[in-house]
C-alpha cells in the first residue's frame, strides 16, 4: 500500500512539474527573432568596456569574477554544500 502510494505520488509530482515547465516554455520568445529581449546592448557593452574597467584580457574571466562575482560565489557555495552532503551521507 505504501509503495503504491509512493509511486502514485511520484507520477503526480512529475506530471505537475512537466505542466509547469511546459507553461514556462510556451511564453518564451520566438527563436531567432531580432526583437527578442536578449538582443540588447549588453553584450556589445561588455565587449567594449571589460578590458578598460576590469583590466582583464580574458573577457569571460572579467565577467564571472568582476561583474557577476556573486554568481561565482554561489557556484562555489553549491560545490561546498555538495561536499558537505556527501561527507554526511558516506560518514563511516
Amino acid at each position: 500500500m505504501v509503495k503504491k502510494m509512493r509511486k502514485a505520488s511520484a507520477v503526480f509530482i512529475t506530471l505537475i512539474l512537466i505542466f509547469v515547465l511546459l507553461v514556462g516554455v510556451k511564453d518564451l520568445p520566438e527563436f531567432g527573432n531580432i526583437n527578442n529581449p536578449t538582443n540588447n546592448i549588453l553584450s556589445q557593452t561588455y565587449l567594449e568596456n571589460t578590458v578598460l574597467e576590469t583590466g582583464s584580457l580574458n573577457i569571460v574571466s572579467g565577467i564571472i569574477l568582476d561583474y557577476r562575482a556573486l554568481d561565482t560565489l554561489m557556484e562555489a557555495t553549491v560545490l561546498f554544500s555538495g561536499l558537505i552532503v556527501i561527507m554526511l551521507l558516506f560518514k563511516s
Partner: protein
Amino acid sequence: MIKKDIILKEVGKIIIPLVQIFGIYIIVNGHLSSGGGFSGGTVLASSLIIMHLIYGEAYVEKNIKKETLIKFISISLIFYAVVKGYSFLSDVYNLPHPALGPVGKIFSAGFILYLNIVLGILVASIFYIIFSIFISKEV
C-alpha cells in the same frame, strides 16, 4: 590493494609534476588567456587523483592531509566572500583598492588574479575529497 607496476610508478613521477604545473599555469593566467579558477582547479584535482590511483591513499595522506584540504576549502570560501564584498563596497564608497595595472601582465586586473587562485584551490580540494570518498566506500 594490488601491487602496482614499476613502469606505472616511474611514469607517474614524470607526469604528475607536469600536470600540476599546467594546472597552476591555467589558474595564474586566468585573466590573460582562456581558463581560470574552475578549469585549472579540475586539472590540479586530476593530478591528485592520478597520485591517489598510482601510489595509494596513504601516499597522498602523507603529503596533504584531508583536514588540511578541508581547512583550505573553508579559508578559500571565506577569503573569496570577504575580498569580493570589499571590492564591491570599495567601488561604491571610494575605499582604497589595488590599481588595475598594465593590461596583459600577470600582476594586473585588481582582485581577479587572487580570486582565481582561491577558486582553483577550492575546486581542486573539493573534487579530490569527493573522489577519495567515492572510491573508498561502496556506492
